[in-house]
Every structure is written in C-alpha cells, then in structure tokens.
C-alpha cells in the first residue's frame, strides 16, 4: 500500500516529503506495539507487517491533510485579519442568538431534561446524572481556568474534599446530605484558599505543576492515612440524599437524585453566569488577559486569584458531596489525576470561559462513551485525538464565549 500523497495534485514536494517522514516516524514509534506480538505461552512471536503499512499510510495521509488545511488557512489569513472577530465568536452561533430562536430551543432542551426519567430506563437516568455532575465540575473549573486563566491540574482534589466531607461526617456523626452540602462547599472554599496561597506567585506551567502535585497529595493522604479516611477500602453505606425523611425505593431515589443534580447544575449555571458578568468576573478576565495591566488598573491580584480558587473549589466540593450521596461508596481511586484531566478536557473542548460550551462538552464527553460501549477501549485515544483536532481546527472551543454587549448597537 502506498501512502496517500499521490492522490492529490495540489501538494508540493515538500508537503509530500514531510508527510512521508511523519508516516515513517509513526511506523517506527508504533513498531513494538503494533507489529511484534509475543505469545508467551507458545513462546512464539508473530510479526504483523501489514499493521506497519497501515500505520504508515494512514499517518502520512493525515499529516498531508493537516498540512493542506494549514496551507489553506494561511492563504485565507489575510481575509481573517480584516475580520478577526470570526476567530473569537463563530458565525454559526449568531443563528441561535436571536431571542425568537433561542427561547424555543431552550424550552425544548428544558422539556427534554424534565421528562427524561419518564422516557428512559433507570440505567440511562443514572448515566445522565453522572454527566450532569460533570457539568457542575466543568463549570466550576471554568471559573479558575476559563475566567481567571489559572491552569489547575489538581481540581479533582476539591471534588475529593467534598466527597470525603460527606462520607466522614456521615460515618462519624450520622449527618445527612443536606447538612453536608453546605459544609462541603465551605470546606472546598477553604481548601481552595489553602492551595491558592502557595501558588500566588506562580503562573502558567509552574502553576500547573504545583496544582497537579496538590491533587496527588490529597489523594495520597486519603489513601494512606487509614485512621482518618479508612484508606483504599474507602467509606461505604453513605446515605442517599433525603427528602423530609420520606422513604424511597432505589428507583425513586435515583430519579430524585437526577432532579437534584439538574437543580444543582442550573444553580451552577446561574451563579457562574452572574459571576462572569460582574465586577469580579471582569477582574478575572483582566487577570487572564494581562496580569500587569490588571494590577495597574487597581485590581488586587492576590484577592482576585484566591477568590477564583475558592469559588472554583466550592463547586467541586459540592459536586463531591453529590457524588458520595449518589454512589454511596467512595474511595481514593475515584479521585485520580485522570479525573482532573477529563474535567480540564471538558473546559478546553467546550471553550474556555464559555458557559454553554462547557455544558455541551460535559454532556458530550460523558454521554458519548456510554453509548459507544463498542469502542470503549479506545475512549482515551479518541479523547486525545479529539482534543488535538480541536486545537488545530477550532482552538477557541466547541462554542466560544460570546461577547457581551452593553450598548445595544450590535
């Protein structure tokens, strides 16, 4: 099989050379994994050379396509410079932004979520509840990463704080969900500030590494401090959320949790949206855009950073309480770096700072793998590929942040 370059007439020799090189590089990289297959029991080795050709051909074709797209974009660059707006707010969005289209759309979406438990099985409802929890998590992280521009790779730590707050309070004091929810939120905020203080002076990569470390510290403490957290065996038999002490069957309880999570997600959307369009929100954006100018405008950088960490952590912790109540069992294995990475994927994929984008990305990223069980093994691979593709094709995210207008002239 020959690599694809010959098919198109447009590419230059350089493009083809580069594509072929990429193909060879991938053949080399994947050689041990895809070509050699060792059968330890029969003590034989199969050489799957066909795989190598596939890898080489496909990666060369993809590389060539990317180069062509890039060349095409560079050629269109002049036009975009004259209208750079398109790079920020995609034209497709304008279609939905008129009230006459937006209201029915929102109503339809609302109705769908309202009747969801009546139409679908408990299994589906359960999946949707999980997805909605990730909406809350994504929106919370959006405050830190999307609004304030602070790359936080240890966000799951606050999720764990919330879950263990409820788990431990229930275990030791028998406290219920509704008491634990505000306590968890407050403790989350406290931990957010605790993490915020040491990283105040850090930016970008350094901040990312320290937050990553913080996330791991929390998990390792939970794993190893057995007297406190019961270690890897976790905490079991956590009570589901109650409703004025009414006894509920498991199924009713799941539906109840579904509506609870919906309410939580709506509350998050409401609060995050209000925060964004406020004095605090503008200060976060200013910090993200240019931290020196931000200080020169009279913004207290320390206070505004800590506020972002604290508020972001509050939502993670409340989602954590919800998580503990939903699964009724928690252990440190639920709070690995992978969780942080997935939540970050949601924010980046949805569009940093965009609320609708993050909600959409959370639902897509959480629901798709469930309904594509057949290819579940490749989930992480697809995650990575989709992210890389998004960064190339639409770096501002699925649904970019909309510009807020005040004068009504637009």
């Amino acid at each position: 099989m020959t690599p694809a370059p010959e098919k198109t007439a447009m590419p230059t020799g350089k493009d083809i050379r580069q594509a072929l090189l990429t193909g060879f590089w991938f053949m080399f990289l994947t050689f041990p994994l895809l070509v050699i297959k060792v059968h330890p029991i029969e003590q034989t080795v199969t050489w799957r050379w066909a795989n190598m050709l596939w890898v080489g051909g496909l990666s060369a074709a993809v590389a060539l396509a990317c180069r062509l797209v890039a060349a095409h974009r560079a050629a269109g660059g002049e036009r975009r410079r004259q209208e750079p707006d398109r790079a920020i707010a995609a034209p497709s969005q304008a279609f939905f932004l008129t009230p006459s289209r937006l209201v029915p759309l929102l109503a339809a979406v609302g109705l769908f979520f309202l009747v969801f438990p009546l139409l679908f099985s408990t299994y589906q409802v359960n999946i949707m509840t999980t997805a909605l929890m990730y909406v809350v998590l994504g929106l919370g992280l959006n405050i830190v990463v999307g609004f304030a521009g602070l790359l936080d790779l240890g966000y799951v730590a606050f999720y764990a704080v919330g879950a263990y707050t409820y788990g431990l309070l229930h275990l030791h004091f028998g406290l219920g969900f509704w008491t634990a929810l505000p306590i968890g939120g407050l403790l989350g905020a406290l931990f957010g500030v605790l993490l915020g203080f040491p990283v105040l002076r850090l930016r970008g990569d350094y901040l990312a590494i320290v937050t990553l470390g913080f996330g791991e510290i929390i998990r390792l403490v939970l794993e190893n401090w057995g007297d406190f957290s019961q270690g890897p065996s976790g905490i079991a038999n956590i009570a589901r959320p109650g409703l004025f002490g009414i006894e509920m069957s498991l199924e009713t309880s799941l539906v109840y949790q579904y509506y609870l999570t919906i309410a939580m997600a709506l509350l998050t959307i409401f609060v995050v949206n209000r925060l964004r369009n406020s004095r605090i929100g503008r200060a976060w954006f200013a910090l993200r855009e240019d931290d020196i100018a931000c200080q020169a405008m009279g913004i207290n950088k320390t206070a505004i950073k800590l506020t972002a960490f604290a508020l972001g952590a509050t939502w993670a912790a409340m989602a954590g309480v919800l998580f503990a109540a939903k699964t009724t069992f928690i252990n440190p294995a639920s709070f690995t770096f992978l969780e942080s990475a997935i939540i970050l994927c949601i924010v980046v994929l949805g569009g940093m700072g965009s609320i609708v984008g993050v909600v959409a990305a959370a639902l897509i990223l959480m629901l798709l793998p469930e309904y594509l069980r057949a290819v579940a093994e490749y989930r992480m691979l697809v995650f990575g590929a989709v992210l890389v593709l998004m960064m190339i094709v639409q770096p501002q995210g699925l649904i970019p942040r909309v510009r807020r207008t005040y004068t009504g002239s637009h």
Partner: protein
Amino acid sequence: MQPLLTVNDLTMDFGGIRAVDRVDLRLRPGEIVALIGPNGAGKTTLFNCLTGLHRPTGGDLVLAPPGRPQRNLNGLPPHRITAAGLARTFQNIRLFPHMTVLENVMVGRHCRTTSKVFGAIFRPEATVREERETVGMSLALLERIGLAEQADEWAANLPYGAQRRLEIARALATEPLLLLLDEPAAGMNPQETQELDALITSLRDDGLAILLIEHDMKLVMRLSDHIVVMDYGRKIAEGTPEEIRRHPAVIRAYLGEEEYGA
C-alpha cells in the same frame, strides 16, 4: 501651589546596574511634565517605580492630594498606588485584547467600586446601581476619546491609535490625580497625534497632573510646562521647554550636536 507628587532621591538597582539614580521630581495639579531622554535612560523604569511594578531600592514617593492628608507611597503594591490616584498607560500597549472596548474601561472602575461575590450573585439594589454607574461612566469616557461607536468591539480589533487612546480612557476610569503616559504618541499618524494633543490638553485643564514620556519632540515642546531630561538613569537637566531647547547637556546627550528645532 503645593506639589501633588514629590519624588526624592528615587533609586532603582537591578543587581549591579543602577537604572534610576537619585531622581527628584515634582508635579503640581494641572501641570504637564515631560520625561525625555535617549532609549535606555531609565524613563520607563522610573514609571514602573512610581506605579509600584518595581519596588524602588531607595528614595521617597509622597502623594499630597489637595484637601486630603499626604501619604507615603513607598513600597505599596501596584493596585494600592492606583487606588491612591496614580494611573498609567504602557509603552507596549497592554489592553485586555479579548474583552470588549467598553469592558476594558469598566475594568478601570474596579478600584472605585466595591461589589463582591455576594453582590455578583444576588445583585442587590446597590450592586445594580453600581453596575449601571460603571457602564455609564465608562461610556462617557469612550465618548470623550471618540470610541463610543466601537464600545462593543473586541479591544484587539481596534486600530493602533485607537488602542492607545483606549489605554488612556482605561487609566482615566480609575479617577486618577496623576496620569502617567508612556509614549502615548508612538506609532500615531499626524492626525492622531493632533487629537492626542487636544485630549491631553483638555485633561490638564480638568486639573489632572500629567507625567509624559515621549519621543515626539514637537508634541513635548508644545504640551509641557516642564521638562525633565534623563540619561544613564540620572536627571541631567530640567526646566521649561525653552530652557531645555538651549541646555548644552541635553543637546549633547539627546538632541545631537546640532540644535533642535527650526
């Protein structure tokens, strides 16, 4: 009149390099002082010291707002200095590119407004009023610099000259007593420079003190009440535009051997 800002013996060392060397400066309300000097003379470093981005190695900064007790600005963080009444623009434009023109100015209102997280979420009457005032005042400032039409445009999309003016509007939104402009006319065409000239004059007439770094000598000579010349971190001369034009040290260091003007 009593000076608004008094700078005594301001010194800034970076390791072994003395970027600003015992500079004195006085600014009165309604006065335009220009800071000139060759590239690398320490003008921007002096600005950074005044606005708290650098912590000066030595010297005193005293602000005496009319009708209020004077205060020492030494070692205050940038946001406290802005709150005290010093606002600045930057030599390399530092707008918030992915915020709208209006939002850029609204950020400048931050230190004069107070609503917190609670206000943001629950929007009590006070916050709503404050927010309305912020929008109103910011729009009025855009009106003044002639950018009201572009209020909802992304700041990054503005042409260069407009970005410089927007930086001034953003600084004005902090309600400064003293405005520090770092090369405001850089890269502007003659028409834009003329508009800038008119804007700076009108700000002076409002009673603002203005400290100006600028390389456009015509603009400096026309606007300034007082000129300070720096070279190698030191103040080598000061005086009225007339005096500076004739000062031998200035001609040597900055304007070349031939006399400036014609």
